């Protein structure tokens, strides 16, 4: 199929969306590129797909670099594909802040899933902080409308505060590996608070039971981190390279969706997600306007008599009218 160029019009995009829904993977890939491109083409894709979204269970997988997110994603989606499901993966890796280039390396660990027919798309963050790319929610909708279910979103390797994934997924899985930290780390705010499910990966390594104990301790001490409607997060032990524990993880993921549906929480989460997405785009637009304002002010946006904060307020007044 011929790929429409940007601005080729909504009929070409609608044609791609139709092909994508009937299983044309190349059409799906083109739609994803248009979503990444942003602007009018992305809007056209959103209109062409909106009637068919909301079916897929969106599962976020996050955790520190090297904890095993890609390997878990590979094992989990391979298992689901072999069980007759149609999973897709969005694997996000960081763009270089200097050149905008990126090495997207998640597929290295996903040969098995690829061979099992899982649709995998690598995405660069393209300057967006928080662990995901700005285009992720739009890309999830493309995969959802194409009939993939579940859609697994793998974040960049994150530290403690990159929790964007919770605003993109129905179910957030946080992966830790032995040696990731002690009980004090576990009690810090951030990533661990947003988990619906925990995975202790590399469970065959020393320290795995300690890692589990630290998580359990943290969960025992806290009432705030139990996310609404779904109770205490479970902890699954996995050795993803061997596939150990992946069946349990698949069951925990499915069980979490059931809880979300029973309690009516799913709809609420998705409503919050829409608002978070609007907010992310708004921030992006405002950041662009800020860059432009600083450029037009020349090299000395801060006047001698001003503090940087005062200069920022002055520019903000000018920008926002």
């Amino acid at each position: 199929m011929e790929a429409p160029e940007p601005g080729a019009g909504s009929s070409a995009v609608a044609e791609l969306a139709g092909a994508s829904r009937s299983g044309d993977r190349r059409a799906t890939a083109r739609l994803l590129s248009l979503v990444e491109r942003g602007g009018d083409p992305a809007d056209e894709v959103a209109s062409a797909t909106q009637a068919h979204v909301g079916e897929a269970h969106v599962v976020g997988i996050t955790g520190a670099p090297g904890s095993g997110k890609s390997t878990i994603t590979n094992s989990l989606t391979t298992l689901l594909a072999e069980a007759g499901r149609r999973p897709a993966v969005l694997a996000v890796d960081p763009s270089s802040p200097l050149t905008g280039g990126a090495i997207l390396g998640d597929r290295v660990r996903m040969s098995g899933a690829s061979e099992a027919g899982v649709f995998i798309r690598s995405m660069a963050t393209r300057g967006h902080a928080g662990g995901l790319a700005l285009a992720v929610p739009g890309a999830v909708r493309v995969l959802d409308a194409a009939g993939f279910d579940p859609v697994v979103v793998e974040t960049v390797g994150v530290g403690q505060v990159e929790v964007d994934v919770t605003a993109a997924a129905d179910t957030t899985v946080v992966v830790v590996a032995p040696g990731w930290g002690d009980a004090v780390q576990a009690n810090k705010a951030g990533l661990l608070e947003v988990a619906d499910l925990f995975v202790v990966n590399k469970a065959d390594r020393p320290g795995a039971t300690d890692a589990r104990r630290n998580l359990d301790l943290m969960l025992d001490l806290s009432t705030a981190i139990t996310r609404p409607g779904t109770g205490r997060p479970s902890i699954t032990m996995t050795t993803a390279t061997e596939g150990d524990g992946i069946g349990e993880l698949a069951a925990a993921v499915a069980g979490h969706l059931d809880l979300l549906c029973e309690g009516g929480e799913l709809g609420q989460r998705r409503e919050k997600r829409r608002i978070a997405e609007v907010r992310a785009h708004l921030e992006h637009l405002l950041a662009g306007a800020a860059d432009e304002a600083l450029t037009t002010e020349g090299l000395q946006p801060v006047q001698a008599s001003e503090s940087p904060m005062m200069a920022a307020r002055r520019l903000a007044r000018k920008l926002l009218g």
Partner: protein
Amino acid sequence: MVDTGLPIRVVLAKLGLDGHDRGLKVVARMLRDAGMEVVYLGLRQTTDNIVAAVEQEDADVVGISMHNAGHLTLGPLIVKALGEAGLAVPVVIGGIVPDADLPELEAAGVAAVLGPGASVEEVVTTVRSAAGRDGST
């Protein structure tokens, strides 16, 4: 940042049992530093896997690294596999390829060949030009 277009997307892989991936890693870094998005598949890929990646990633170029004299077999094989999948994506081969083999690879539809002495500029220019995106990232 204004969304004027997409970075060039390149799928990089080694096909079959050739285990020498240092060159591929170096090239991945060169292309990244030139502002491209490199989908890195790494070692021991099958043609099916590479074709699936090129399709799903909407790649502009595919780069295959070969250091075990398999290029006359595997080069045409990957070009053919992509063609059969309806993917008109140019194939660039990097690695040890004797000059005498170049005409045969060209005839088989390989877009370009980069040897061990290729400079960063040469690698980046070749990939850009294969992508039909001369002068851009």
